[in-house]
């Protein structure tokens, strides 16, 4: 009975990395937006979208 711990570790690593990245970018975007800094805000939100799309592309292709 072998359990593939590497794969489980990958799930943990990917979840941790992607989630922390997305939520941090998103909150920074909201902070920038509340001080009316439009450009950094949009850059942050675009970063979130990019991370999500990259993740999905890894699954599909």
């Amino acid at each position, binding site marked *: 009975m072998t359990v593939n711990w590497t794969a*489980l570790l990958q799930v943990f690593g*990917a979840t941790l990395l992607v*989630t*922390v990245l997305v*939520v941090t970018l998103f*909150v920074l975007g909201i902070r920038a937006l509340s001080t009316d800094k439009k450009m950094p805000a949009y850059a942050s939100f675009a970063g979130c979208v990019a991370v999500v799309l990259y993740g999905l592309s890894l*699954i599909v292709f």
Partner: protein
Amino acid sequence: MDPALVVIIVVVTALIFDFTNGFHDTANAMATSIATGALKPRTAVALSAVLNLVGAFLSVEVAKTISGGIVDDAQITPAIIFGGLVGAIMWNLVTWYAGLPSSSSHALFGGLIGAAWVASGVDAIHFAKVVDKVLVPAVVAPLVAGVVAALATIIVYRLKKAADPRVSHTGFKVGQVASASLVSLAHGTNDAQKTMGIITLALITSGSLAPGSGPPTWVIVSAGLAIALGTYLGGWRITHTLGRGLTTIEPAQGFAAQTSTATAILASSHLGFALSTTHVASGGIMGSGLGRDRHGVKWGTMGKMAAGWLLTLPAAGIVGAIAGKWASTGTGGIIGVAVIGGAVSLGIWILSRREPVKPEHIVDEVAAQAELHKVAA
């Protein structure tokens, strides 16, 4: 009975299971968005249905785990699969009626394993694969989602202090809808694939497909449509428990919980782990509750849920074992299982019609809860 006819019965039953799965699990993705008022219930459910459909097309890894791994396809027949499916559907409907977020996935595995075990013997089950691809991920994935959600919630609440509360309130509602959409997509990748896997397994055991084949396109399309339709039509009852009973959720917290849940499910689907999306979503909500307030989680509700989870595999296994054994005896057995399964489903449906929970009720209760908070403040 003509083997081709048995396969058709299995395909139809599997699609019904897929429908009840969507019916059961809409809550996972949309509970927090509905609870915080970020989305109207009907919009939430329609969006979730479409994304479940799209998600079904993203990957076939989980389908392969089921069609080519957990049971020995040389030792089982479509009739046994039928028995397992009926066991899973009955367990799903009972827990749905009781408002318990049990796992459709574990009901399916339980039913299939129980049926194969009793009808074909213990050799028909690949226990090593069951442990590696189902049981261990079943424990690990909700923990991963929970731990990461707790961390994400802490980050979100630390960083959002500096933001304008009005901007952040609107912003997180948008973020919550986006992350809920990702959960729905993730849900489609994992749960719709389980049905694809079962249908593919039936086709392999009847000799229509070569062992080791992936799901044919018509199987992917029909499984995606069935789960989307089920999602659209159901789930109010469970949304009730998950959205409000577990812990009180703010948009920022819902956003953190769902981002973590969606990522954990998508990563697992990619590696072929057939896990319970319900458990992962609950893990995410719990984790974010802990991240926000150590005392904010209702452990009692959590305990009841965990008990329901533990029961799912053996309970569906026993029903699946009885149904599988009976169905494998021949035409009479298949008809008998179908009639009893149909009668139980009809009975629960009639019972549920007596006290329907409509989407409007949930909105009203959320509004009422918001009023309470205002009074308290």
